[in-house]
């Protein structure tokens, strides 16, 4: 499905995950998220946010997964004891001549499932995003927020931020088609358990005005043929 959209879209396509991805079911747990990272590498994800089910691996293992991943794990508000970010706060993806700034923000409770006390703390999401936003805007044509705060908190963020086009979220397990609109920002989520893929098409005119925004939720049902490369990756861990 992803390949199909990439080849037919005739515009830049980003692939993002809003987190709570690396653990949960048994194969992901027994491989400490390795199978998931390898599959996401094969699908060419551009970035991932971090949730409680990712920090459940513990900081050391999660950092190992981050090294193995060909895409960044993003969080602007998860910091070490010196207040420095443990993961990249943001990334800028250049595609087809356009620059997309993607900022990751974690929920305040992101550490609650961590197996051992982690020498880290979680800063206020809004303050952290506001701090990094000017830097990201300066490097990007479009800014997207990858959020694990849930739709209600995302609404508050959207009202308080200038220059964010969309918030790709998680945690509240919603399927937002059409997007939730707050202060001109499109808030989207695509369900849970890998059963749906969200597709948000956005367009801006030369004045920076949003002229197109359509989100659809695509069910990834059994009628869709498995990608043999992904089957091989999963089977290699069984």
């Amino acid at each position, binding site marked *: 499905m992803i390949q199909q959209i990439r080849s037919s879209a005739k515009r830049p396509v980003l692939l993002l995950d809003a987190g709570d991805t690396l653990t949960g079911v048994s194969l992901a747990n027994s491989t400490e998220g390795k199978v998931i990272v390898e599959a996401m590498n094969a699908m060419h994800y551009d970035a991932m946010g971090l949730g409680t089910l990712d920090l459940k691996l513990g900081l050391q293992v999660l950092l190992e997964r981050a090294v193995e991943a060909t895409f960044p794990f993003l969080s602007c508000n998860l910091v070490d004891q010196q207040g420095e970010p443990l993961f990249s706060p943001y990334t800028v993806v250049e595609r087809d001549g356009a620059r997309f700034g993607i900022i990751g923000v974690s929920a305040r409770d992101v550490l609650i499932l961590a197996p051992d006390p982690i020498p880290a703390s979680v800063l206020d999401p809004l303050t952290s995003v506001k701090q990094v936003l000017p830097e990201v805007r300066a490097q990007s044509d479009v800014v997207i927020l990858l959020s694990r705060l849930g739709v209600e908190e995302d609404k508050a963020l959207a009202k308080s931020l200038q220059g964010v086009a969309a918030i790709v979220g998680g945690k509240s397990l919603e399927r937002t088609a*059409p997007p939730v609109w707050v202060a001109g920002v499109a808030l989207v989520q695509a369900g849970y358990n890998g059963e749906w893929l969200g597709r948000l098409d956005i367009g801006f005119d030369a004045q*920076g005005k949003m002229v197109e*925004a359509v989100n659809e939720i695509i069910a990834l049902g059994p009628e869709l043929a498995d990608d043999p490369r992904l089957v091989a990756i999963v089977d290699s861990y069984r």
Partner: protein
Amino acid sequence: MIGRSYVRQINLAIASLLLLTGCSRTNTPAIPLPATVPAATAILPPASKPVAFTILHTNDSSGYVDPCG
């Protein structure tokens, strides 16, 4: 802004489709951007070129590698 009843109708339609088709593809119809929705502030620098793009997004996959179970 999209009316609440309109959203409810769409949600009901999605729910009906899911009930009827289970885990099959249930794309919602493409919904054009309502006239009142455009950004409150300019997102792009003035006089930049138009940009159109697609974000494919997932969340809360909880380690599932087999969609639909």
